[in-house]
């Protein structure tokens, strides 16, 4: 039976309360007057309130690191934007990609970029790569309150570490936990599929251009199985955003090069839709 909450007329004992068979007050309130519970305040689903950005992949190569993100933002089951940018240069030697609540994520990136530049200008020297990764963790931790309300922001950070002369990748959780990843990593709704693809494709001795190709392949697999991740939009010529970081600094892969790589991947998928074949043993 449904609980009638608006009792009309003076009734000493509402009859529907007699029907409850529990000794938990919380259960009774949840069933009869859920608006009184703290959890019921605020939006039921944040997905319908703000766009969500989806899959980011990053992988280290022999001479640097590659980060790529698809271009789709979703709002519930709708596509909110087809050409959103989720991968950014953080400074001259690092890149950051963001999955999660798009508006907050872009604000976090904006703040992070100013944070790094501000430090560099005041101190006269850039932060170490670990220092940058830690600063990003603090910013994400600051978002914990909103994350609990459903507006989660999960970044992926990668950069060139001048001290050890290699590219490094850092992943995060919503509480600001920062973890270094070896080889490759992926975040966002399609990350499971992208990581699966990278497991089979990744080689530590990749050149940067091979790394770019692997990243585009992994994003294709993510888009193949996750509706919130956008595949390459050949009709509109919208390709993933790919950023490389090497000893020479950060660079966004040009539109023409990316079109070439994407077309190559799409052509190979026409022959074998599930992607490159891996050896069994």
């Amino acid at each position, binding site marked *: 039976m449904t609980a009638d909450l608006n009792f009309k007329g003076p009734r000493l004992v509402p009859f529907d309360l007699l029907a409850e068979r529990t000794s938990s007050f919380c259960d009774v309130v949840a069933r009869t007057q859920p608006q009184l519970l703290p959890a019921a305040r605020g939006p039921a689903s944040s997905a319908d309130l703000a766009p969500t950005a989806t899959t980011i992949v990053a992988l280290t190569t022999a001479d640097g690191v590659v980060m790529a993100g698809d271009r789709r933002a979703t709002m519930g089951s709708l596509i909110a934007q087809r050409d959103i940018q989720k991968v950014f240069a953080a400074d001259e030697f690092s890149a950051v990609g963001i999955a999660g609540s798009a508006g907050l994520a872009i604000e976090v990136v904006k703040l992070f970029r100013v944070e790094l530049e501000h430090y560099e*200008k005041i101190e006269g020297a850039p932060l170490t790569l670990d220092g940058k990764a830690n600063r990003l963790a603090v910013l994400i931790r600051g978002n914990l309150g909103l994350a609990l309300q459903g507006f989660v922001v999960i970044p992926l950070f990668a950069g060139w570490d001048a001290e050890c002369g290699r590219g490094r990748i850092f992943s995060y959780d919503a509480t600001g936990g920062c973890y270094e990843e070896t080889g490759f990593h992926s975040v966002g709704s399609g990350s499971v599929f992208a990581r699966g693809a990278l497991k089979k494709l990744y080689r530590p001795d990749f050149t940067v251009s091979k790394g770019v190709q692997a990243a585009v392949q992994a994003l294709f697999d993510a888009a193949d199985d996750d509706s919130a991740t956008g595949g390459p939009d050949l009709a509109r010529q919208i390709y993933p955003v790919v950023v490389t970081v090497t000893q020479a600094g950060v660079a966004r892969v040009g539109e023409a090069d990316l079109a070439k790589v994407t077309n190559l991947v799409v052509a190979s998928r026409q022959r074998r839709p599930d992607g490159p074949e891996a050896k069994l043993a």
Partner: protein
Amino acid sequence: MTAPMFYVSPEQQIKDRADFARAGIARGRSVVVARYRDGVLFLAENRSQSLRKVAEIYDRIGFAAVGRYSEFENLRIAGIRHADIRGYAYDRRDVGGRMLANAYAQVLGTIFSTVTEKPYEVELVVAEVGLDPAGDQLFRLSFDGSITDERDFSVMGGSAEAIAAALRETYATDLALPRALAQVAAAFGAAHGEPLGVEAAEAAVLDRTRHQARKFRRLAAAEVAAALEPPPAPKRRSRSRSRGGVGETAV
């Protein structure tokens, strides 16, 4: 025991404070900020590798100072904070040199006229590089908060007069960077009676041709050395083929 109080007229008070600040500034080594073909050049006589007189404030804004280090360092950091907050709150393009120069003028003016505080013994230049040479701006700020808009170059510090006199003779704003650097260094040399060594030169530019949004760049010692060493005897044929154009042959 308390010291006896004497009446000091406001005019005398201002004059004393100004003399105090001027004396402090005159002890410092000089800095030149000059426009050149691709932006703004900063050249300072500074033997320290870490205590800088020239600094980046924002994408298109640079800062140069002479006088008491701790004081202009405070002003530099305050300027970076001011610019970064404004750029974050509005947009990066909304941060301009004039706004920053005005903020510095307010601060310096207030400190100068507060009797309980010692006046700052500093002079500053806030420089902004424009999209084209006509957009370049140099603001000179004095210890009392007075602000002037300089046209081609600005010289501060102990030998400011002598260096400015030498520059007025020779300097042209359409020079390419190596020539501009050599000209400014020569003015230092003319004022001091000996050439400015690379080890004593702190050089930086706001270079509008830089691809990055941040136009400020420090010049490496090798780049400064290449510009300061006497040029090799010119070959007739190479001159006509030089890509330097008007700027190269103007002086």
